[in-house]
């Protein structure tokens, strides 16, 4: 025992002076690659996978529409049918047209022609719903859409 104690006493303490630097580096990394999620998701939103995809424009040129089942903890108040979320509210399908026009009018005139509607649709949603949304968009003459997906092979899918 005494032999161990003797050795321990002579060992220098590890310097932790650079620990803050390392943590700050991590912090800045996360600050740059992530974005603050400005609206809380009320619906399940697990995006499908695709490989032949284009990267989206900047966030200010996007209008986002979320579609999916209500989150489990909200199922009591929202029911268990498909729901559409616009910004932070649950909406009806007929609200999409006015919502998109309203969002469009908030954008500066110079980028209005480049605005894309990003359809963030849960992968378990039926296509009929998506078709209805597309029809609403056509009615307000907004034709540029993007089916937002994750990148990757959809290998384990059943057909």
């Amino acid at each position, binding site marked *: 025992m005494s032999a161990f104690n003797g050795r321990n006493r002579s060992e220098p303490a590890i310097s932790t002076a650079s620990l*803050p630097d390392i943590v700050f580096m991590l912090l800045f990394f996360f600050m740059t690659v992530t974005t603050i999620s400005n609206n809380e998701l009320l619906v399940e939103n697990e995006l499908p996978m695709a*490989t032949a995809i284009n*990267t989206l424009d900047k966030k200010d040129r996007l209008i986002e529409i979320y579609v999916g089942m209500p989150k489990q903890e909200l199922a009591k108040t929202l029911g268990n049918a498909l729901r559409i979320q616009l910004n932070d509210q649950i909406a009806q399908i007929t609200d999409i047209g006015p919502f998109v026009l309203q969002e469009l009018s908030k954008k500066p005139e110079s980028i209005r022609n480049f605005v894309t509607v990003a359809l963030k649709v849960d992968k378990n949603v039926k296509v009929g719903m998506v*078709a209805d949304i597309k029809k609403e968009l056509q009615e307000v003459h907004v034709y540029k859409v993007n089916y937002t997906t994750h990148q990757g092979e959809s290998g384990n899918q059943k057909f």
Partner: protein
Amino acid sequence: MPRRKGAPEVNAGSMADIAFLLLIFFLVTTTIETDAGLDRMLPPIEPPDQDVVIKQKNIFTVNINKNGQLLVEDNLMNLKDLRKAATAFLENNADGSCTYCKGKKDQSSSDNPTKAIISLKNDRETKYSTYITVQNELVGAYNDLRNREAQRLYGQDFTKMEADYLNPETPSAIRDDLKDKVKRIQDMFPQKLSEAETSTN
């Protein structure tokens, strides 16, 4: 009391704790951006002024039923064969006007890539992920052909050229150069993907 030589040292031991706290805050409140997807232009809702007559052989119909099965040109098909079939249809080149196509010149299939149209029909009950996977394969077929031509003409992939062209950080001199190249490849295989109305049964 004699003054010390320098200012007293600040204890920076808790700096790491503060930084960790900030780090954890950012980890919790932010999400990594999912900023990619399939771009699509919707057709205008007004019907065109005159009816356009399209020969049946220039249309490649893909039907998806509610179980996610594919009916391609009236034959049941596996998803993994779809890209190949679509590619073969697009560059079939029956009238011989397309000099860069390597198709079989089958008279019962499409005339040339500018006339070839892919028509996608789906059931209302089809799952969205199936629908996206099928669209992905069809866009992939276009990308394969465009990549091949871009490799032949310019020695690089079309998808990379297009991404560079659309990226605002690319210097404008390179972008102007890419613009014509991208346009040329796009005109070689124009993406004509029609989404018909969904059916209810």
